[in-house]
Each structure stands twice: as structure tokens, then as C-alpha cells.
């Protein structure tokens, strides 16, 4: 079958950045301690099943949402050292600290289904949820597995496939097809990965699975569900689709076929702050600092950022590796600027404008935290409008928020279509924090009772 090329209006292609993950896979050493938030992937607080001082096995449930609901599993065997509320992702939640006993073994999931082909879809979905791999709805017309590679730094799907093997992926897809009766399977990879996509399709075909392939343009934020799903499937079907990343399929298969709980995550190291940047297989909950420590470049101050330089959050070295980790970036802090930046050739400077050599010659670009300019008034250059993936007008909207005019006009101008991709802030010539202003505007509107209703026009 032909591979469909998927583009969308707006967005921005980061192309090649120096310091991207290397094509190697290493095992991270077992952590001495892990920290795990007793919270579901959807953000709900869960009831603790264990007490401080208790001994737990890797794979044992620490907390549960109802019966058969989402759970948080211990990711190392050891003793619960601490169980108390702590700051977590901007809020507060109960966090368990486990001191590991150094053993790498784990308990299989209760109710595993080695003969999954004979199991019911409900049982498969429940196991997927309890293993921590994926929360699947009862019904879905489409399932999209993506590795969009739309960020400046991306994990390599080739390495993930190497880590688990082609059979694992195909079996995972078969399990998904079984768990979601009648579902159509889609695989969406960057257009550079056409050969890989074809290989996967061929292997799936041998198992009688039909897989629809999509070659993605790779512009940021194509991996965002609000951009990817309507683009691939249309507005109506896009709403009834499930979106998983490649790694979730592997974890799901391990949970169902082997009874293996989701204890680990393959996280790609990236950023010029690191001398080596392998993909690491690491236990969930491992302090991020421990993961990057062996690879840090000496004498360079770096900021740890999880998953995305554009949309991700900065993390302290003590922060634990979350379940949804994909990339861990050490981006160099740059408080110095550069010499005559307005006239510099810019051999490694990324810009949407083609005023730097790196953009003209397709050279690898260097990322750092400098603002690369001073704050100025908006000159309506239109860059933010050009890159906006949901076709709203940050340059107009931000003025209302700045003047604190928060009323129906903002709703009418579709501020609630904003998906917080942050691309407008990235490209702004005047260094205006457009995305933050839009977020503030949306929050204030919600407070005033003017929240989003039907926001798709």
C-alpha cells in the first residue's frame, strides 16, 4: 500500500540539532532509590496500598484507582522509605520513596494472559491499564502509533525497535487489534523512516495484520494529538482515535504476553551539555541526575529538560524519571550572549527567518537557553501566525491579555483552540512570551466562567 504523506499548515521544522541522541542503547545501573508519585497518568490521586517501612517487590502495586483501575507499581524491589505529599508537576501529590535492595527481579502481574489470543478484549484492556502501559477506551475506530520525531531532539525509533525486536512490536500491535475490536491500525513515522515503516508493515502483514502507514512531515507539533489525529483521520474520526507512542506498544506486549509490569522506560539522552548521549533503559523513578551524571560535560552549566525543549518542563536532578519519559535533555545555560549577534554569520543558529548561515546551508544547530535578543514591542512580523498549528492569531490575542481585556472577544477569536505548543513564543522576533500570555488569558477566562465550550469551528 502507498504511504500517505501527512503535512499540516503552520508548524515548524527544527531539522538538525547538534547534541541529538546517539544510536546506542545502554542499560542504566539499578538505582539505589526511586521516587514514584501515587497518581494516575490522567492526573488523579490514587489510594496508597502500602505503608512506610514495608518491603515491596518490583511490579507490586503501590496504589490503585478503584478496583481494576490504573495503578502505580513499584519499579524496584526494596523497602518503602518514605510516603508523603511532595511537590509534583506544579501541584502536590503523595510520593513514595523506595530504597532498592539491589535485586533486579520482579513479580509478574497478577492475572497475566500468556495465551492472550484466547482472552477477552476487556481482560486485555484491564491488564494494559494495570501494567501501566496504556489506558485504552472500550471502543475506538482507529489506533495510531506514532514516532513523529518533530522535536529538536528525538528518540530513535530504530533503537527502540532494536531494544525490543520486530516480533515484539508486531505482537503488541496484534494485542491492540484484539483489545479494540474492529480497530484500524495506523503507524505514523517521520518521512525519513519510510523504509522502517515498510519493514514494519511487511512484518505485520505476515501475521495477518493490516497496518496503514503515514509518512509525517515532522514539523513541530505534529506529535500533538490535536494536530496529528485530525490530520491523519479527519476531524470526526480523529476524535474517536487512540494515540500511542511506539514504546507504549512494547510495554503493552510485555505486560500481556510476559506478565511484565512496566518498570522501565527507554529514555534518549540529548543536549550539548552531555558528552555522550546514549538511549538508556532505566527504571521509572530513577533520579534524573543519576541518569545523566556519567555523561555530563565538565565545567558546563546545563538545564535538565524532560521530553521537549519547546513544550517540556525543566526538572531538578533529584526529580524522578516519569512513566511518560522519552528524551532527557541537558541544554547548556547561556547567560553570556555572543559577540555582535546582529551581524554574526550564525553557523549554528536556528531561526525560522533565513537570516543565519545554519538555515541557509542546513548546518547542525546548537541549542542553548539564551533568549537571543531583547524584549521589544510587537512589530506584527507575522511569524507567530505563520507557525500556529491551529490557525489562531497570537499577535492579536496577546495584546488583549497584556492590556488585561479578558472578555468574550478572546473566546470569539478562538483562544481556546490554542494547544499550548509554545511555538509562537519560540519564533517571536520581539521575544514576547506569547504562549504564556495566552495561557494566562485562558485561565482568566475560565475563572470568569467563560471557559471553552465547543471550540472547534
Amino acid at each position, binding site marked *: 500500500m502507498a504511504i500517505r504523506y501527512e503535512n499540516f499548515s503552520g508548524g515548524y521544522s527544527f531539522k538538525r540539532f547538534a547534541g541529538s541522541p546517539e544510536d546506542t542503547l545502554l542499560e542504566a545501573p539499578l538505582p539505589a532509590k526511586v521516587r514514584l508519585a501515587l497518581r494516575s497518568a490522567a492526573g488523579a490521586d490514587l489510594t496508597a496500598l502500602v505503608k512506610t517501612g514495608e518491603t515491596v517487590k518490583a511490579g507490586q502495586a503501590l496504589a490503585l484507582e478503584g478496583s481494576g483501575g490504573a495503578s502505580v507499581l513499584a519499579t524496584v524491589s526494596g523497602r518503602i522509605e518514605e510516603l508523603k505529599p511532595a511537590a509534583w508537576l506544579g501541584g502536590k501529590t503523595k510520593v513514595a520513596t523506595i530504597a532498592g535492595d539491589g535485586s533486579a527481579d520482579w513479580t509478574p502481574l497478577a492475572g497475566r494472559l500468556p495465551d492472550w489470543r484466547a482472552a477477552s478484549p476487556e481482560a486485555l484492556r484491564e491488564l494494559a491499564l494495570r501494567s501501566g502501559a496504556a489506558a485504552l477506551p472500550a471502543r475506538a475506530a482507529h489506533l495510531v502509533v506514532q514516532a513523529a520525531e518533530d522535536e529538536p531532539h528525538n528518540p530513535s525509533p530504530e533503537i527502540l525497535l532494536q531494544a525490543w525486536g520486530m516480533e515484539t512490536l508486531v505482537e503488541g500491535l496484534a494485542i491492540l487489534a484484539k483489545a479494540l475490536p474492529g480497530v484500524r491500525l495506523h503507524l505514523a513515522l517521520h518521512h525519513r523512516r519510510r523504509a522502517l515503516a515498510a519493514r514494519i508493515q511487511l512484518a505485520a502483514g505476515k501475521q495477518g495484520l493490516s497496518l496503514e502507514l503515514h509518512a509525517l512531515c515532522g514539523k513541530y507539533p505534529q506529535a500533538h494529538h490535536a494536530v496529528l489525529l485530525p490530520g491523519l483521520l479527519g476531524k470526526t474520526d480523529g476524535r474517536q482515535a487512540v494515540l500511542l507512542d511506539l514504546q507504549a506498544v512494547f510495554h503493552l506486549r510485555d505486560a500481556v504476553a510476559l506478565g511484565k509490569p512496566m518498570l522501565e522506560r527507554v529514555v534518549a539522552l540529548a543536549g550539548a551539555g552531555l558528552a555522550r548521549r546514549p538511549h538508556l533503559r532505566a527504571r521509572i523513578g530513577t533520579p534524573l541526575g543519576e541518569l545523566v551524571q556519567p555523561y555530563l560535560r565538565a565545567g558546563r552549566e546545563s538545564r535538565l*529538560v524532560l521530553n521537549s*525543549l*519547546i*513544550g*517540556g*518542563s*525543566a526538572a531538578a536532578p533529584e526529580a524522578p524519571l516519569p512513566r511518560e519519559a522519552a528524551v532527557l535533555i541537558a*541544554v547548556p*545555560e*547561556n*547567560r*553570556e*550572549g*555572543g*559577540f*555582535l*549577534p*546582529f551581524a554574526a554569520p550564525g553557523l549554528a543558529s*536556528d*531561526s*525560522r*527567518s*533565513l*537570516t*543565519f548561515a545554519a538555515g541557509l546551508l542546513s548546518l547542525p544547530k546548537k*541549542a*542553548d*537557553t*539564551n*533568549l*537571543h*535578543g*531583547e524584549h*521589544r*514591542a*510587537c*512589530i*506584527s*512580523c507575522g*511569524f507567530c*501566525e505563520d507557525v500556529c498549528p491551529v490557525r489562531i*492569531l497570537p499577535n*492579536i490575542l496577546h495584546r488583549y491579555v497584556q492590556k488585561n481585556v479578558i472578555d*468574550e472577544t478572546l*473566546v*470569539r*477569536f*478562538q483562544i481556546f483552540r490554542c494547544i499550548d505548543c*509554545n*511555538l509562537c*513564543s*519560540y*519564533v517571536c*522576533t520581539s*521575544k514576547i*512570551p506569547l*504562549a*504564556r500570555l495566552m495561557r494566562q488569558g485562558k485561565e482568566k477566562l475560565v475563572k470568569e466562567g467563560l471557559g471553552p465550550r*465547543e471550540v472547534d*469551528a
Partner: protein
Amino acid sequence: MKTLRSLFDALAKSRLLRPFKPVIQTIGGIVCGSRETTAEAPHIRDHIEIKRYMSAVILAMAPAAVAAVVFYGWKAVAMIAVSYVVGGIIEVLFALIRKKEIEEGFLVTGLIFPLILPPTAPLWMVAVGIAFGVFFGKEVFGGTGRNIFNPALVGRIFITIAFPELMSARWQKPFTDAVTAATPLGLFKSGRELTPLVDLLLGQVTGSMGELFRLGVIAGGLFLIFTRVANWRVPLAYLGSVALLSWIGNLALPSLIAPPQFQLLAGGLLFGAFFMATDPVSSPSTRAGKWVFGVGCGIVTLLIRHFSGFGEGVMFSILFMNAFAPLIDTLVLNLKYRTAKV
């Protein structure tokens, strides 16, 4: 780099130079770049900034400016210098009063202004014009980004109206000393005479200093569009509508309206379409608005060229459409979001 930075830090802290702090900070920023880092996502930023943006515009105008110097020698240099010095003083004064850094938009205004003057313009008039343009065209609105009109055009219109004789009847061909009242557009109006296109392209005709070397103007305009600094919609709509309408007009009224190839190359059209109508601040910010704006400029330019007493209509048309830019944006937004569910 570090020593330079500490030098500027020391100067900015000095008690003696305190009133000049904004100027010192500006120069420090130009030389050493920004020290500020991102506080949240996005953790990295595009390297474009206003200084680079404006530098790109200046670079794009360089062929036209260099040609002006080649054509008119020291007079052109002196006019550019006076424009920068006088406009710069006003800019610095406002920065000091506002206690804010100097805005880079002036670097473009300061170059555009002398380039849209006749080479015969006396230097004192350059000073008066740029002072008026920067003051009334920009500073009274609150500086770059808040102005409604293109500041260079405000200055130009002011001296055109104040000194009509000097501004529209004293032209000088490159490499000659003879002063004449005739411009290619005027020659067509009075005697249906079409200046050869090659002369227009190479600038061997009368006109404002910067508009003459049209090959260079076109190259600069394409550079701006290629680098994405100027939006392509405005020049395309402007030049396209002039071409289309004058083609139709020339078929209907050949004795009154010149053919499109002449229209495009005559007068300040190319310079205006590439370097002034594209000014993002004073043109509409919506995409649809940019089309309307460009087409409006085209229509008004032709109307003035052929149905008014003035010889050239480019600056009036851009200034006129500048006034409508906010209205155009409002209309576009109302249309765009008319059917939106609230």
C-alpha cells in the same frame, strides 16, 4: 567577550553616566548580545531578534543606497549621514526620557528617508524631514511597534507639502549636474513619452535617490522575501494589482494610462512596494488584510499617477493605506470569526 561585557556593566553602573544608561545598555546589547535566559518552556528560542531583523532590511536596501552614492557621490553620503545623526539624536532623547533602550526601527527609517528624497534636496531639509518623521510619525505614538504610519513617509510628505517646489520640480540625472523638472512619469503624463526600460532598470533617469537602481531594489526585495523578513503578500498584491490594472487601463485608455511594464519600473513603486509597504508595523497584521492593503496601495497609486495633479502616487498611497490598516484588520477579524460559535 567577558571583558567587553564587564566594561559595559561598569559604564552602566557609573554615577556620572547615569542619565545615559539606556544608551550604554543599548550599545552593550548590540555588542555583546542578550544575557537573559528563558525562564520556562520554550527553553530555547529562535535566534531572530529585532536588531537582526532590521539589519536584514538595511542589507536589502544596501544595493539601492550604494547606487545612490555612486550616482550622486558625497551629496548622497551627506544626506544619509544627516538623516542618521538628526534622527538618531531624537531617538536617543526619547530613549533617555523614557528610560528605555533605543529602538532599532530607527536604523531602517534613517536610511529609507534620504533614499526617498530627490538628490537636490538641501541638507537642512533632510534634517527637518527626518526630525518631523521620527517625532510625529513614531515617537508621539509611543515608539516602534505602536506607530500607525511609516515614519519615513510622514517626514517625506511633510516636506513635500511644506516645500513643494524643491521636492517635486528639481531632479537630477545620475552623473550630471543639470537640474530638470522632468521625471519618467512626468514625461509620460505630458507627452506620452515612455522612458526605455533599460534606463529605468539601471537608474539612468531622474527620481528619488534610492529608487533609481531598480535592479538592486528588486534584488533587495527578493532577499527580504526569501529570508522571510518581509511578507511576500504585500509586494505581490501591490505590484500585481498595479500590473493588472494598468494593463486593463492601458487597453481602455492608452493615452492616459501607461502600460504595465513602464508602470512597474517607473517612479518609486518598486522601492515602496518592497521596503515601505512591507513595514510590518504600519501594514495590516492579518494575512487577508495584507492582500487588501497591497491591492489598495496599487489602486491608489494608479489613481494618483493618472488622475491627479501629482506625478507619483506611491508614498501617498502607502500612507493612505497605513491609515486604513487597523480598520482592515478589524474587518478581516470580524469576517474570519463571524461564524464562530461563542
